[in-house]
């Protein structure tokens, strides 16, 4: 895998340089038109300045901007244990040194993306619609694909190449608009006499600049998209290898493509980050050259064609079978891997998710509510109660059986884990009645994940990163002190 990253870097460098040349040329000629006779250098400086400035912004806040724009919310293990576990599994499989942050986007369109210019500060985000539609194996495939983007450094590429592309588009647009504007407005004030001296040269420069302003964005876009598509294939191949189960991702892609929902929080700039194009509905036919993602049906066919193993070589073989003579997607170093890796069997989970059916809709709603920090109670009579975080009363009488149900202070538990004892004291006051909850002590055995039962029977967990002095059970409110 490490060889692949190096090969990727080389290719990206070539691409960056060609895109950079486009930018410099464009800057030179546009500058020469705006500030004749020798504004070319100034143009280059301005063009590079635009690029540098935009890069700077995204380097320091890129992740948070993307996550904020897509309205993603960071979640803990408790909100969706399965998602969290799968991310950890893939982190281990990919040998990533740090655990990525996990985000859920409260939207129905199934999709996922990864961010993280630096791999130490990466994140994976999935939509609630994805979680409610996919089973464990499918979700694992999607997470593995996103994890591949992180280890293959694709986010870095997408961000910086995207910014280069953005700068080129910006400069061309400004230039073309100003040309159009000036040619209309100046006609009335100018004589039709030719400008004396150097007029010929200036005309040529203007023509070249216009041609560049039209062509450069198209050219860079094509370069950018072709590489971004290649990276999608590579991420699919890596995902198959990481999970050792290509069918998981294939079936996930199938599920995702069967839904025709746009993701309103995505836009053209963020689109390449997603596992499938979030704006896929328009221009599917045109998509071959100008699409950031390869056609889903083809990706599925390639994954399903991996019959004998999950090596990079197996993927390339299947790819060649599906795509015919298309150039190879896997760098040669990836093909040298000799060890055969077998496909594993599917996991035992029998439950199939039924999107659009009652259960699927319920799941979707519950995930969105969990993200929004609702507490979930199940009364002994079977009635489920979902309590919003701003609900103020400590108890709910079940309208079905009359039992009294205590409202767990869910948000409080999360806060306490981070802050420590002070919040508990405040929380106890908020709780009102002094019915003292159970107290127990747990002594930590090591530094890894540890789990134990609360006195009410609920499974409690502490993560390797846990630093608090105690945790509060979200079922019974009992406090367990954690000792080192």
């Amino acid at each position, binding site marked *: 895998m490490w060889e692949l990253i190096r090969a990727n870097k080389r290719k990206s460098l070539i691409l960056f340089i060609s895109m950079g040349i486009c930018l410099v040329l464009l800057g030179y000629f546009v500058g020469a038109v705006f500030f004749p006779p020798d504004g070319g250098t100034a143009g280059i400086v301005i063009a590079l300045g635009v690029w540098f400035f935009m890069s700077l912004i995204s380097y320091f806040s890129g992740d948070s901007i993307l996550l904020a724009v897509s309205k993603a919310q960071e979640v803990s293990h408790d909100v969706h244990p399965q998602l969290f576990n799968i991310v950890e599994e893939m982190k281990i499989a990919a040998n990533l040194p740090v655990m990525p942050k996990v985000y859920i986007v409260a939207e129905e369109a199934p999709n996922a993306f990864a961010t993280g210019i630096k791999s130490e500060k990466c994140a994976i985000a999935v939509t609630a619609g994805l979680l409610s539609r996919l089973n*464990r194996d499918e979700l694992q495939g999607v997470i593995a694909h996103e994890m591949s983007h992180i280890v293959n450094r694709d986010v870095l590429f997408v961000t910086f190449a995207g910014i280069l592309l953005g700068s080129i588009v910006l400069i061309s647009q400004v230039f073309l608009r100003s040309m159009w504007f000036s040619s209309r407005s100046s006609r009335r004030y100018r004589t039709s006499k030719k400008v004396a001296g150097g007029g010929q040269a200036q005309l040529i420069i203007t023509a070249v600049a216009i041609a560049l302003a039209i062509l450069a964005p198209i050219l860079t876009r094509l370069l950018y998209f072709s590489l971004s598509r290649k990276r999608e294939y590579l991420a699919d191949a890596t995902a198959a290898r990481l999970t050792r189960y290509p069918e998981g991702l294939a079936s996930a892609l199938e599920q995702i493509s069967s839904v025709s929902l746009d993701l309103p929080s995505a836009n053209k700039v963020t689109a390449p980050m997603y596992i499938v194009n979030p704006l896929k509905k328009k221009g599917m036919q045109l998509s071959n050259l100008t699409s950031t993602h390869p056609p889903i049906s083809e990706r599925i066919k390639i994954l399903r064609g991996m019959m004998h193993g999950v090596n990079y070589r197996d993927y390339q073989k299947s790819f060649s079978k599906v795509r015919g003579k298309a150039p190879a997607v896997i760098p040669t170093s990836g093909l040298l891997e000799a060890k055969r890796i077998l496909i594993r*069997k599917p996991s035992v989970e029998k439950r199939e998710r039924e999107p659009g059916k009652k259960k699927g809709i319920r799941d979707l709603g519950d995930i969105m509510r969990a993200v929004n920090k609702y507490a979930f109670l199940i009364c002994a009579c079977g009635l489920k109660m979902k309590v919003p975080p701003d609900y103020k009363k400590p108890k709910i009488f079940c309208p079905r059986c009359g039992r009294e149900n205590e409202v767990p202070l869910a948000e409080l538990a999360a806060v306490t884990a981070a802050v420590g004892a002070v919040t508990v004291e405040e929380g106890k006051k908020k709780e009102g009645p002094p019915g003292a909850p159970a107290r127990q002590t747990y002594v930590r055995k090591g530094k*890894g994940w540890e789990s134990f039962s609360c006195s009410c029977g609920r499974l409690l967990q502490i993560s390797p990163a846990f630093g608090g002095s105690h945790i509060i059970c979200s079922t019974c409110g009992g406090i367990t002190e954690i000792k080192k």
Partner: protein
Amino acid sequence: MAILILLLAVVVIVVVVLIGFYNSLIRLRNQVKNAWSQIDVQLKRRHDLIPNLVETAKGYMKHERETLENITEARSRAINAGSVGEKGPAESALSGAISRFLVVVENYPDLKANQNFLALQEELTSTENKIGFARQSYNDQVLFYNNKIQMFPSNVVAGMFSFTVEEFFELEDRGERAVPKVDFS
């Protein structure tokens, strides 16, 4: 004089190259150690989870006492295993007991409706996966490290500083950890 400088230069280059090889070997060995600790963490976590799981399942699975006892027994044997040589078979026996348990569970709808049990089951399934992935990545690292130790020219450095070949960690590969498919319908 010129020869002396040349000789000095050669010595400096050789030392720099040696240091380079030495450092990369150290880095690889650390990665192997790191990968091993990952497996260790997950094995421990599995040992912690089992008592809770058995406790919850007991009430529902009256007819599966044997399955449950097998797990408990396999767990204590795995915990008490001393050497790495004993550990491998003991842990793989535990994996077998767990996967049989996870298949049997599918036939107890009441148990599958218990939220507490579902949470534990997800944790156990995930821990099993993590052990598998950690093992896979450990073996990848070991392969890489062993190749470096045995191949020229890094084998010279490895010999000088007594880097030794690491062992692979093999939980018996029952068809790549295949879970036996049981169909009761």
